[in-house]
């Protein structure tokens, strides 16, 4: 027994397929245009793909066995990359905190301050890190300083957003309780906002560090210090066995960092 006659069902039945609207059509045309142009401009031919495969063979045969003769300078460069990641991330995480507080709705009441902070974070996030690195190399010259500053900006953009989301989720009870003692704003924030969010800050900070170590490797390619410089040199000089040693070292360090950081993360949460 149903409420309606089956003959009335037709007008309630959703269409099997809906044609896109005008904006939808434009979207599809736009997408297909660039997709086809992209494919054709990449100049993909069977011949080229075949040659690539052949080159891969040469590359691998020359890369093995890896040449560890330059292991000493390479290790120092790796240590420099590690330092860039540590310093940049640590300073970035610390600076993220005020940014996060200033962009969190439940802490900063003024919409003006909030949108200015969010705007700044938006700029940091949307400009890619290699572009930041190029800018800092121009400003401060080649070397690790440019790398540190780039990692710092990257970390702030990443952490401040997650920190402030965590702060906005806070239970407002303890905040009100400390406020009700007549405490100043700072006391309330350090007493009831930061402690409950702290485990999440640590976890996010560790993610940022994992991101930074990978980022710092690449930054060397544009001259911002670290092992990237070594890798680029070996590649340009076609010393693929040296390059292989460097890549292995990078792999090792990145894996170790991820392992340790996930161990720590499990302990804090």
């Amino acid at each position, binding site marked *: 027994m149903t409420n309606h006659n089956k003959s009335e069902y037709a007008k309630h039945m959703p269409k099997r397929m809906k044609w896109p609207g005008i904006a939808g059509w434009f979207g599809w045309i736009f997408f297909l245009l660039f997709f086809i142009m992209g494919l054709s401009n990449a100049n993909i031919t069977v011949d080229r793909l075949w040659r690539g495969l052949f080159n891969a063979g040469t590359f691998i045969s020359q890369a093995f066995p890896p040449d560890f003769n330059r292991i000493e300078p390479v290790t120092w460069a790796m240590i420099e990359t590690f330092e860039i990641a540590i310093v940049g991330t640590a300073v970035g995480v610390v600076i993220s905190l005020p940014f996060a507080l200033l962009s969190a709705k439940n802490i900063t009441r003024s919409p003006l301050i909030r949108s200015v902070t969010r705007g700044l974070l938006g700029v940091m996030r949307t400009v890619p890190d290699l572009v930041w690195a190029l800018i800092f190399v121009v400003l401060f010259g080649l070397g690790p300083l440019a790398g540190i500053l780039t990692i710092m900006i990257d970390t702030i953009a990443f952490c401040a957003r997650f920190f402030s989301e965590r702060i906005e989720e806070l239970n407002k009870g303890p905040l009100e*309780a400390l406020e*009700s*003692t*007549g*405490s100043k704003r*700072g006391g*309330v924030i350090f*007493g009831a906002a930061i*402690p*409950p969010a702290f485990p999440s800050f640590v976890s996010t900070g560790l993610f940022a560090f994992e991101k930074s170590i990978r980022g710092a490797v690449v930054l060397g390619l544009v001259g911002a210090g670290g092992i990237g410089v070594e890798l680029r040199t070996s590649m340009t000089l076609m010393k693929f066995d040296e390059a292989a040693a460097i890549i292995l070292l990078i792999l090792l360090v990145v894996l170790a960092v991820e392992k340790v950081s996930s161990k720590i993360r499990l302990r804090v949460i």
Partner: protein
Amino acid sequence: MVHLSIQQVGKTYDDGTEALSSVSFDVNKGEGVVLLGHNGSGKSTLFRCINGIENTSSGKILYNGQPIHDLSKKEIREVRKNIGMVFQQFHLVGNLSVFQNVLFGGLGKSPSSISVFGPFAKQEMRMKALECLDRVGLIHVSKKRADSLSGGQQQRVAIARMLMQEPELVLADEPIASLDPSAGKEVMDLLWSVVKERGMTVICTLHQPEIALQYAERIIGLHKGRFVLDQQTSQLDDTRFEWLYEKNLKNLSKEVISVD
């Protein structure tokens, strides 16, 4: 001596709900008052107005004869230092130690906020926090995380935090509403005895008349934001007593009763 004077206080929220409508009463220094009413009777709103979390829409609130409605942020902080709060949900910082939570009671009155944070607190402050914990019978859990305690214990920690603050007036907002009856009794016994031994004024909201009768010297009834009863507990006559027991505050609202 009048400690707190509520004069024709009304509160209408932005969305048009009228939470309080010209409520008036005085509370004397050292008095123990229970504010009785159902959910939505305006008890919490009244507390929020006294504490400056909300502004009143009309009327006056005087603290020791001084108006405390419509103050600047700085002035509100000064008033709050002398008003201790106890909340239904305890409002402890869960992942910090019991000891640290008690220390937070000193936030308002200590000259710099940093002096109530564990590692930076002076020995004198640390001793005082332990003393407060000892008074509520929980010195043995001082190092535990606050959220590892039972509800009743957490509320006792909240009372210790309030003692640390050394307020003159205590506002307890449904302190036992989320506790089981035996823990609730323990908390009420403790709250009333610490408040009385230190000569503090206390206003406590409850919704169970039978508990109000056990503790209060005076009962004030609120119903839908209106003032419906104000009576010394010892002078409650049988009819009103029954009304209370039937939780029939609605009937009381037909005739506003006040005795002085």
